């Protein structure tokens, strides 16, 4: 119990207070402490990856062993890991060799990872359109203001919209770029700042809760 609950709380308290004080102490001792903590953090991040890998392998191995639905995908996952790892080791993680030719690792990066990730990101364009069409419906006065702001921004964000505005709306005392700047800099930023101040205060309260052991759920429960 001491090692599982009390010790982590003590470590958390000491490190939390020291890190907080570090901000106010400019001495070399304090800088050294920050550097050491930073290096530990980097080392832990690197080792934590192995933890994830172990979980991933265990889960997919279990799927193959039990032949659950879609176990073939798990085989594919193992194949991908082995292929990627082998190519990475052979190519020494370089994308091109000394002669400037693409390596196997570079090929995987450029012709497998690049298009796959690009495709996932590109899906956003489709989902934005379908979500906007479904959700952007004016059902109240507040929704109308939101709608108006969205129309101005969508219109003025692109060169063609700016051109149309300057041709047909030039009688207005302001250009569309000014209107967008105003919306983004004032109502939008003001709302965001409000949320951000709330978040910052919440984060301070959360930090105090963790440093002083008031909240211990992250250690696996209250007791």
């Amino acid at each position, binding site marked *: 119990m001491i090692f599982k609950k009390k010790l982590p709380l003590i470590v958390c308290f000491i490190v939390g207070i020291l890190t907080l004080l570090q901000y106010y102490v400019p001495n070399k001792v304090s800088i050294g402490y920050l550097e050491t903590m930073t290096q530990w953090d980097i080392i832990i991040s690197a080792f934590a990856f192995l933890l994830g890998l172990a979980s991933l392998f265990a889960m997919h191995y279990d799927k193959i062993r039990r032949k659950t639905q879609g176990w073939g995908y798990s085989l594919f996952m193992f194949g991908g890991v082995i292929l990627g790892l082998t190519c990475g080791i052979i190519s020494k993680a370089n*994308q091109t060799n000394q002669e400037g030719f693409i390596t196997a690792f570079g090929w995987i990066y450029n012709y497998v990872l690049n298009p796959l990730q690009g495709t996932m990101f590109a899906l956003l*364009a489709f989902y934005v*359109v379908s979500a906007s069409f479904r959700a952007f419906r004016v059902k109240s006065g507040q929704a109308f203001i939101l709608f108006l702001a969205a129309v101005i921004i969508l219109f003025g964000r692109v060169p063609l919209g700016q051109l149309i505005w300057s041709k047909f709306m030039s009688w207005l005392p302001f250009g569309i770029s000014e209107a967008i700047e105003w919306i983004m800099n004032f109502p939008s*930023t003001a709302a965001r700042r409000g949320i951000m101040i709330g978040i910052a205060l919440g984060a301070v309260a959360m930090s105090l809760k963790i440093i002083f052991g008031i909240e211990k759920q992250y250690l696996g429960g209250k007791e």
Partner: protein
Amino acid sequence: MKNFFDKLLKLDRRILFLLVVFVIVFPIFKPLKLPGIKITDAVKGVYNTIESLPENSVILVSFDFDPASKPELYPMAVAVLRHAFKKNLKVIGMTLWATGPGIADEIITMTAREYKKEYGKDYLYFGYQVGGYAVITGMGTDIYKIFSKDAKKGSPLETFPVMQGIKSLKNFAYVIDFGAGDPGIDTWIAYGADKFGFKLGAGCTAVNEAPTRPYLQTKQLTGLIPAMKGASEYEILIKAPDKASAGMDAIGLGHFLILFLVILANVVLIVQKYLLT
């Protein structure tokens, strides 16, 4: 009639997807060269800072994005590096993203070659380091403790002439982050520029533009290049139109499609509510 409007409001999303494909693919095959790009102050902020730097100043560029965000951030990174090399600045590249080294290497090597720059003397590539904010904090006090060797040749950093006088982040004349998420612009501001006091500029994806903008007002960023549109402005500023300028047609039509659909949905809603009841 009511039935038709109902169907219109519940339009199958696959039809919407087809419309998106059309407006994006069409201008790729037949560029429309839509006019009207205007240069904004945010983009000028990065351009003017680079323009104001004396020759041989060393700048650090962090490519914190992966292939997924490449369409948005690659063109601006290329444009900024072209500007820097044209101005005879020395450029050091790095990335905080595990999937970023490929793109970072490609951009820095390609642009350096265009201007016949020499590796180690005019530019250097640190590569990737795991740790996110911890890497920035570490670089703020001692770069050599975080990156002991370069990523291309594997030689100690101090052996490269470009590293002369560079010990920590404070020694860079300008730091630019092209960030798509975390670690990214927020990280560079909170753990870098605010803490160690160096000039920071940034390039971001379209979705991150709004949350990043307040940093311009508070002068925590000297400038911001937002997505493809910002990149196209930068290309105009350096008089080298490239991928971003070409992509603006598709983006323009995409915006108009959303505008059309949103207005259509609301018109149908009004017709249903007031005319058909």
